[in-house]
């Protein structure tokens, strides 16, 4: 696959598809849905042009696509799929199943609102629907992070046997152009060797195994407890894998963060009065809005599952205001990110507020962010 280590000006979807092709999966299957389409169209074309050697299976639904990559993964293949919104919801039963079977699926989610009302633009409602499925859930701020996450995702999935979803904001990342470095096959290979699961862990006639058997209460809860422990423990693997990768492929960043361990990134003063917590591409806009704010910092959540509760508690401890901005609701309760944050900051004595922004592609302007900061001495949940 033609690519190099130099900066290229690419569409986000193209950056992702080039990276996935260079990771060299064995089996890809997907079903079209806006705004994921460009990614899977590119991948089909690379194969048609003889530039890639994966099996590309056209599925008749997202449910089928997810099941196809599940089967391929159980047979020892490296797999990839991508979807959005309604497609992700249609996959849901398979997503829980893949995590329960400990299969290392990797999937891109081009984040989009969920209907009704039907809407094709970006928010995080789709991702939140799979929050409890048992997947590692990573969020990208920009094209380069999206590219990096895809390589790291395979490292995590294949070493931990936990499926990984990479969330990229629909249109904002998938359809916009940015400077980005695409790692070539050689660089990736150094980090991510060819996938060869151990005999006895996948479907192979040399050692027959039973995968997906029936678990009675006595065994079921233990299996679930183990999966939860492994997902929680993966915070250490993520930090290690992230740092290792950034050493191999350092990328120029506009604003050097004060702290970044792969799970969270902090930008702002060393002792912020107000701490904004957010995920995904809106972090870029928030950084822009904070240029003239010397008492406000941004803690960007890169990994939503596992949830970096310990890091959040450390940054939240000495602030007066916690401002949680998120692109999803949990109707009838606080937003999902807010609820998770608050569960991890029992020591926090200041004012916390929850701001639901960007639903269905509703613009998040610098002005809105300034207004949110102004309102932050008042607790509660507000829509913007």
């Amino acid at each position, binding site marked *: 696959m033609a690519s190099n280590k130099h900066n290229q000006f690419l569409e986000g979807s193209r950056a992702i598809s080039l990276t996935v092709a260079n990771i060299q999966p064995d089996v890809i299957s997907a079903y079209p849905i806006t705004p994921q389409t460009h990614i899977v169209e590119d991948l089909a074309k690379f194969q048609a042009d003889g530039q890639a050697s994966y099996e590309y299976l056209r599925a008749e639904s997202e449910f089928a696509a997810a099941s196809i990559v*599940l089967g391929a993964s159980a047979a020892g293949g490296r797999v990839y799929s991508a979807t959005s919104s309604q497609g992700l919801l249609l996959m849901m039963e398979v997503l829980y199943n893949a995590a329960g079977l400990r299969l290392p699926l990797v999937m891109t989610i081009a984040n989009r609102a969920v209907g009704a009302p039907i809407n094709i633009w970006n928010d995080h409602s789709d991702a939140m629907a799979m929050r409890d499925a048992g997947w590692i859930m990573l969020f990208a701020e920009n094209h380069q992070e999206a590219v990096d996450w895809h390589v790291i995702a395979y490292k995590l999935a294949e070493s931990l046997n936990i499926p990984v979803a990479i969330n990229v904001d629909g249109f904002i990342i998938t359809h916009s152009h940015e400077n980005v470095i695409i790692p070539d096959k050689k660089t990736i290979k150094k980090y991510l060797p060819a996938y060869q699961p151990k005999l006895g862990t996948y479907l192979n006639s040399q050692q027959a195994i039973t995968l*997906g058997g029936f678990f009675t209460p006595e065994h079921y809860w233990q299996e679930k407890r183990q999966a939860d422990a492994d997902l929680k423990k993966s915070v250490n693997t993520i930090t290690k894998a992230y740092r290792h990768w950034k050493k191999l492929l350092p990328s120029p960043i506009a604003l050097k963060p004060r702290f970044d361990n792969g799970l969270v990134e902090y930008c702002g003063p060393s002792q912020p009065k107000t701490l904004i917590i957010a995920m995904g591409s809106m972090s870029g806009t928030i950084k822009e809005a904070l240029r003239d704010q010397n008492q406000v910092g941004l803690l960007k959540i890169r990994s939503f599952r596992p949830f970096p509760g310990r890091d959040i508690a450390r940054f939240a401890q000495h602030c007066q205001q916690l401002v949680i901005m998120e692109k999803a609701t949990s109707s009838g309760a606080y937003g999902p990110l807010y609820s998770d944050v608050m569960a991890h900051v029992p020591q926090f004595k200041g004012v916390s507020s929850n701001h639901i922004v960007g639903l269905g592609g509703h613009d998040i302007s610098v002005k809105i962010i300034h207004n949110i900061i102004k309102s932050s001495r008042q607790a509660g949940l507000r829509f913007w």
Partner: protein
Amino acid sequence: MGKYQNHHLTPGHNACAGCGQLSAVQAVMRALTADTILVNATGCLEVTTTAHPQSAWQLPWLHSLFENAAPVASGIKAALKKKKRPTKVVIQAGDGGTYDIGLGLISGMWERGDEILYICYDTESYSNTGIQASGSTPWGANTVTTPTGKNSSGAQQNKKDMMSIALAHGLSYVAQSTAAFPDDISNKVKKALATPGPSYIQILTPCVPGWKIKTDETIKAARLAVQSGLYPLLEYVGGQLSASSINNNFQAQPVDNYLLMQGRYRHLKPKEIAQIQNIADKNLQIYKI
């Protein structure tokens, strides 16, 4: 056990005594080689053979969900193709997973042309969840979701013609058998696996609690299904009914013998039995048995 022994499914599963499905599975297993991967849909077969940490399976075996055995098998086949492993892939599912909830996904698999043998064990109801009606439940059958009552004499829909659906997908091998004919089952499985492309076999497997028969009546019921003409032994090769399916000297038994031994049909009045006799008579014409 002699010639009926096989090493792919060990004794010790916990299916009901006299289970027709498990006898048919044994016949299927005798036709498989060690280089076969099995994909199972949710249902009686999965539940009764895999109570963790035990398993009755000696072949690589995967169960994912109720409805997705077909695309899961497609994915397995794709990975095997990429890795140049010639392993065979066989799906086992019930009629609920086949006729109803999995149908669209089966169509997708057949459309892709993946070389996978799909076997449907047809109990004519959702056995595992307690004998609810499926698209395979025949007209007149009493199930818990098509109960008989003052205003109803059982299922009011006809059994879906799954064989024709398979044939419409252009499959090179499509066959039907019943649990009373283990050698026929084994032969058909071998033939299906030797035929390139996707293939489909459905096997009528009487369900003791579902059909309300005695535990020693499974084989008798499966034999009468054939002898009455309601469930003929069929085989289509390249879309054509094969000569082995045709028997011009066939002497059909009246459907009464088949129906009245089963509790699920015991409520039927003579007029209703005549209606089912019509189905059998039509079969005899269509299939020239």
